[in-house]
C-alpha cells in the first residue's frame, strides 16, 4: 500500500458512482452494500454501530427470504452479512442462503457463496459435526445441499468451478463426508492443469489433518505429487510430507536425498522467475524444505551427510540483505544445529547468529536471540562470546527483546549466575502485565529456585524462602 496515496473519505461520493477502477468493485450510490460501507466509515461509537448493524440485519433477513431476489442481489446480501459477522453480530439466517448462492450462482457469485460458507461455518459448528440438535442453524438436509453442490462443482467442465470446490473443501468439509468426495479429489491429481492438481493436493492435506486414516491408501499419490514437474504442485505436497514427517521421520528418511535435490534446484535459481520474491527464489518454499530436512537429519548421521552441501549453498546464497533471506538463514541455522553436527557448517552458522545478535535492526536482533536460545544448549560458548550484547539486551528498551533475553538466560543458568538471572526475572515480573508471561516466568523462577536452593547469602534467611515470598505476590 502506498504511503503516498490513501483515498480520503471526501473521495467517497466519487468512488460510489465511478466505475473505472481496475479490479475495484462497481457500486452504485444507491446500492445497499455501498450504503452500509459508507455508514460503517462514519461510525463514531459502539452504540451507533449496534444500531446500524441491527437495522442492517433486519433488512437483510427480510430481503434474503424474498422469492424475487436475483443471484446478484444475493451476492451483495452475503457480503453485507459477512460485514455484520466481521463486526461481531451473528447473521445466522444467512447461512442457508450462502449455500444456495454457491449452488445456484455462477462465477463470482458462486465464489462469494462459497466464501460466505467458509466464513460462517467452521469445523466445530454443530452443523458440520452432524449432531442432532434443536439449535441447528441449518438443517441436515441443507448441509447435504452444500456437499452436493461441492460434488457437482468438482465435476464441472468449467475449471474455475472445480477450483472453487477444491478451495472450499480445503477450508472446511464434514469429516463424515470424506469418503463421498475422496475419489473425485483423487482423480484431480492427474489433471492436465497445474492449478487443479495443486488444489487437489491441498484438499488431501486437509483430509490428512482431520482424518488421516481416510487417506492412508494413497501415499503413493503423494509421492507422485512430490515429483510433479510443476513446482506449485510439488510445494503443495510438502505440506502433507511435513505433517507426516513430524509424526514419524523414520519412514521418510529415504526421501531426504529428494528433498535436498529439490532445495538445491530452488536455491540454484532453477525455478521460473515469477516464483521470486524480491530476487529471492521461492523463499517460503526454501523454508518449508529446510524444516523437512531438519526433521529428517535429526539423530541420523548418514541422512544428515546428504544435506551438508545444500545447507552450505543456502547459507552462501542468502547473502542479499533482505528480511526474507534472514528468515531463510534462521531456518538454515536451526537445521545445522539440529542435525548431525558438521564443524564447518556450525562455524558458519555461529557467525550468522552473531551477525543477527549484533545487528542494529531490531527484528534481526530478536531473531538472533531466538537462534541463540535454540543453539545454546549445544554450544554454550556461543552465548559466552556474545555475553556483552546479551547483557545490553537485558536492559533494552523493547520489552520483547528483554523477554527473549530472559528466555535465553534461563537456558544458560548455572550455579554462578543464577542469582543475577533470577533477580532480572523478578525485576521484569514487577513491570509485567500479561498473565501468560507472568505465569511462564514465575514457573521458571520456581524451577531455578528448586535447582539452586542456597546460592546467595542475602537476604539473610536464604534465597529460596525470599523468592517464594515474591512469587506468591503474583
Amino acid at each position, binding site marked *: *500500500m*502506498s504511503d503516498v*496515496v*490513501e*483515498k480520503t473519505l471526501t473521495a467517497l461520493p466519487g468512488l460510489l458512482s465511478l466505475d473505472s*477502477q*481496475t*479490479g*475495484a468493485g462497481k*457500486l452504485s450510490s444507491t446500492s445497499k452494500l*455501498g450504503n452500509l*460501507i459508507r455508514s*460503517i*466509515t462514519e461510525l463514531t461509537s459502539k452504540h451507533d454501530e449496534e444500531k446500524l448493524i441491527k437495522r442492517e440485519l433486519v433488512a437483510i433477513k427480510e430481503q434474503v427470504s424474498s422469492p424475487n431476489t436475483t443471484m446478484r442481489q444475493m451476492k451483495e446480501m452475503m*457480503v453485507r452479512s*459477512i*460485514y455484520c*459477522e*466481521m*463486526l*461481531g453480530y451473528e447473521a445466522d439466517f444467512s447461512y442457508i442462503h450462502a449455500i444456495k448462492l454457491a449452488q445456484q450462482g*455462477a*462465477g*463470482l457469485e458462486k*465464489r462469494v457463496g462459497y*466464501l460466505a460458507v*467458509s*466464513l460462517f461455518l467452521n*469445523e466445530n459448528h454443530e452443523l458440520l459435526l452432524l449432531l442432532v440438535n434443536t439449535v441447528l442453524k441449518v438443517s441436515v438436509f441443507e448441509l447435504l445441499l452444500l456437499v452436493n453442490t461441492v460434488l457437482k462443482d468438482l465435476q464441472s467442465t468449467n475449471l*474455475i468451478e472445480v*477450483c*472453487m470446490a477444491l*478451495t472450499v473443501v480445503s477450508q472446511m468439509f464434514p469429516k463424515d463426508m470424506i469418503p463421498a468426495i475422496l475419489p473425485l479429489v483423487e482423480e484431480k491429481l492427474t489433471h492436465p492443469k497445474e*492449478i487443479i492438481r495443486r488444489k487437489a493436493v*491441498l484438499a488431501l*492435506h*486437509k483430509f490428512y489433518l482431520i482424518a488421516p486414516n481416510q487417506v492412508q491408501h494413497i501415499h503413493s499419490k503423494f509421492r507422485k505429487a512430490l515429483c510433479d514437474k510443476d513446482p*506449485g504442485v510439488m510445494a*503443495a505436497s510438502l*505440506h502433507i510430507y511435513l505433517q507426516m514427517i513430524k509424526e514419524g521421520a523414520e519412514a521418510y528418511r529415504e526421501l531426504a536425498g529428494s528433498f535436498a535435490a529439490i532445495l538445491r534446484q530452488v536455491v540454484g535459481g532453477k525455478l521460473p522467475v*515469477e516464483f521470486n*520474491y524480491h530476487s529471492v527464489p*521461492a*523463499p*517460503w518454499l526454501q*523454508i518449508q524444505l529446510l524444516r523437512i530436512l531438519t526433521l529428517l537429519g535429526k539423530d541420523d548421521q548418514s541422512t544428515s551427510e546428504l544435506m551438508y552441501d545444500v545447507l552450505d549453498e543456502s547459507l552462501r546464497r542468502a547473502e542479499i540483505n533482505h*528480511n*526474507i533471506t*534472514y*528468515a531463510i538463514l534462521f*531456518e538454515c541455522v536451526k537445521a545445522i544445529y539440529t542435525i548431525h553436527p558438521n564443524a564447518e557448517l556450525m562455524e558458519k552458522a555461529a557467525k550468522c547468529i552473531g551477525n543477527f545478535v549484533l545487528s542494529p535492526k*531490531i*527484528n534481526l536482533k*530478536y*531473531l538472533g536471540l*531466538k537462534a541463540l536460545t535454540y543453539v545454546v544448549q549445544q554450544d554454550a560458548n556461543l552465548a559466552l562470546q556474545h555475553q556483552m550484547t546479551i547483557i545490553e539486551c537485558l536492559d533494552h528498551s523493547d520489552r*520483547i527483546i528483554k*523477554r527473549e533475553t530472559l528466555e535465553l538466560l534461563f537456558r544458560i543458568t548455572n550455579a554462578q549466575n543464577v542469582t543475577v538471572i533470577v533477580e532480572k526475572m523478578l525485576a521484569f515480573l514487577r513491570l509485567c502485565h*500479561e498473565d*501468560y508471561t507472568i505465569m511462564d516466568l514465575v514457573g521458571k523462577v520456581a524451577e531455578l529456585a528448586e535447582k539452586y536452593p542456597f546460592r546467595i547469602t542475602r537476604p539473610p534467611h536464604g534465597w529460596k524462602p525470599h523468592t517464594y515470598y515474591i512469587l506468591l505476590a503474583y
Partner: protein
Amino acid sequence: MIKFFLMVNKQGQTRLSKYYENVDISKRAALEADVVKGCLSRRKDECSFVEYKDYKLVYRQYAALFIVVGITDTENELSIYELVHNFVEVLDKYFSRVSELDIMFNLDKVHIILDEMILNGHVVETNKSRILAPLLVLDKMVES
C-alpha cells in the same frame, strides 16, 4: 501455523478478519481490540513481534492500517512478516496501489486473494501471478 489474519485500523475498526482456528464470534471483537491495542502501544523502533497470551503476534503497519497475524511458536516470525508484505504487494498489483477504502469496498475479493495464499493456517501460495489468476478469471466472467 497461522491462527488468524487481521486488518485493523488505528481506531480499532476491523477491516478484514480471517480465523484459521475457531474463535467464537462473540469473542472476536474483544480479541481484535486487544490485539490492536498491543500493537498501538509499540514504538516505531521496537521489534514487530509481540507476545500475546500463549502465542505471538506479527504486525506490520501500512498508513493507518495494521495487519496483524497470530502465529504459534513453530512459525518463523520474519517469514510471516514478509508474507504480510507479499500480500500487500499482491493487493497493490490487483488494485493499483491499494488503500483502506479499496479493501472495504472489495472485502469479498480481498478474502478471495487471501484464500489463495493461506489455507488451514499454512502458507500455500506466494507466487503473485498464481495468487491472482483465479480472481482475474472470475472478473473476466463478470465483464462478459
